[in-house]
């Protein structure tokens, strides 16, 4: 059984269809990239999965539970973590407190008290390599540090599925490599499925993505292993605007 299943999910904004009849399955521990240009519906899809928006049509099943109408704060503890494209730290709180919030509210166990959460936070901060910033106010971090902190915060929720909003955009290639290795290692150990948003398909190749789902104007056009997807003519059309032959002819 798939960890996450979307069945014909549609989300509209006042007549504008942002996500159109999308069905997909994500298995436990899988690394998937949601690929599509700006405005293709990636962010809306994420927001529908974690409950910021409710879809007009379709169902969302997570870990065997129908979560279609569940508010976001009830979905997170089931095991859905999220990072944002532009990091959204709780600025006035320290890094340690930020990560502790994830441990405190992001799991189903009601027994996690403040002290336990802070301990969990310390472990995760060590693991991510943020210990020198642990007492710093999150608002004062650099963008890269903020991204790392967000990942730590999401990991503290012990997610089964981690939704990452273009987590690598704007980072130095060396940092990306390092971070990808780190996330991959943790995800493998904890069996976390990762769905990351990718603006351009070429990024999926350098990333860790095993499977890509390509969105175009709200609809899913391709759902295949990364290598296959790269050669799919529909993908080439979306990204280059024409079939490859014509492109050659022009240039």
């Amino acid at each position, binding site marked *: 059984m798939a960890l996450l299943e979307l069945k014909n999910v549609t989300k509209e904004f006042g007549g504008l269809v942002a996500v159109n009849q999308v069905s997909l399955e994500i298995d436990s521990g899988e690394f998937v990239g949601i690929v599509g240009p700006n405005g293709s519906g990636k962010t809306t899809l994420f927001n529908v999965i974690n409950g910021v928006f409710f879809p007009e049509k379709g169902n969302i099943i997570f870990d065997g539970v129908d979560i279609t109408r569940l508010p976001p704060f009830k979905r997170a*503890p089931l095991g859905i973590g999220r990072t944002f494209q532009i990091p959204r730290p709780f600025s006035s709180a320290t890094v340690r407190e930020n990560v502790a919030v994830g441990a*405190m509210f992001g799991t189903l166990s009601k027994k996690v008290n403040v002290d336990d959460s802070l301990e969990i936070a310390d472990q995760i901060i060590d693991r991510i390599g943020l210990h020198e910033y642990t007492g710093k106010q999150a608002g004062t971090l650099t963008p890269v540090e903020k991204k790392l902190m967000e990942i730590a915060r999401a990991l503290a929720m012990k997610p089964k599925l981690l939704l990452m909003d273009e987590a690598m955009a704007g980072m130095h290639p060396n940092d990306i490599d390092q971070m990808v290795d780190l996330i991959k290692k943790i995800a493998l150990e904890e069996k976390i499925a990762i769905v990351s948003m990718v603006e351009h398909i070429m990024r999926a190749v350098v990333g860790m993505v095993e499977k890509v789902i390509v969105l175009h104007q709200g609809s899913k056009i391709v759902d295949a292993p990364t290598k296959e997807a790269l050669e799919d003519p529909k993908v080439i059309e979306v990204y280059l605007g024409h079939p490859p032959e014509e492109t050659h002819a022009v240039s």
Partner: protein
Amino acid sequence: MKTISKYYPLLPVLAVYFIMFLVGKNVSGMWQLVAMLLFYCALGQAFNIFLGMTGYVDFGYVAFMGVGTYGMAVTITQLAHVEGLGFLVITIGFLMALLFSTLLSLAVGAVALRLKGAYFAIATIGVNEGLRFFIEGARIWNGSEGLIFMAELNQILGRKTASALATFWADIMVLFIAMSAAYVTLLFMRSKIGYALTALREDEEAAKVMGINVTKYKIIAFITSACFAGLLGAASWALKTPYVFPPEVFEIHYTIEAIIIVLLGGAGTLLGPVIGGLIYGLSKYYLSIYMPGFQLLIFAPIIIVIIVIFPEGIIGMLKNRFKDTSLARFII
């Protein structure tokens, strides 16, 4: 050891209150001023639990003090003829104040707390006026004539006790309310509630996605803050001045004062409202002697400057300055 150190930040708060009490008790003629300062500190601490910790502005906050005052006033007028109740009446009065402010906060919260930011503020700005005009318009509790219960209070407690209550014991109750509000603030800060409130104040959507039931925590802060306001109205307004008129107890002026105190001291800090209350109370007192009628003319630009230049307030600034020193554990 660990549990005791958690309460270190209460020390400066209690120290300030203790000094105020000593000065008031021992320096002749000072009690009245100290009583006023205690009122402002208590008001700041009560309001801070909501405004400071959630970042939501409740412009109708004074309404909770108003209904608290009515809770005490109605109890006293209704129970005056029952023989031999004595101080039990006052206790029931406080319970009624709690009940009224809880009910009002539930009613307002049910509508307003569904709304975000600006819409919340708009929904609350009319609460005090709305309630005032409801009481006046529908002639509830004697409508615009208000309730005067000096005689009833004397009848219940005896003239001497009633007078001691108005001039001293009511202020001690205010002090107790202020200290309880400080304790509850610290309790919140050290618990899940505090973490949830910080998260939702900084970024409500991210907080939701992290598994925080933001509505629940907003309601907790709102009701707690409202209850302290209700108690404060009952103690400081009903018992000290045994009458209640709708335009007075629903006067937006007190919300303004609460905002000034919290911002001046530092919103969301524990010690801030105490310092804010002291500074505001003292300046108001001396301004009313040397420049009567100019308090707000002076304070309005001060708030604007605080908001624009140092939004973290006095304690917020000190907290940053002493961050890595041994003083840090006392100042939050």
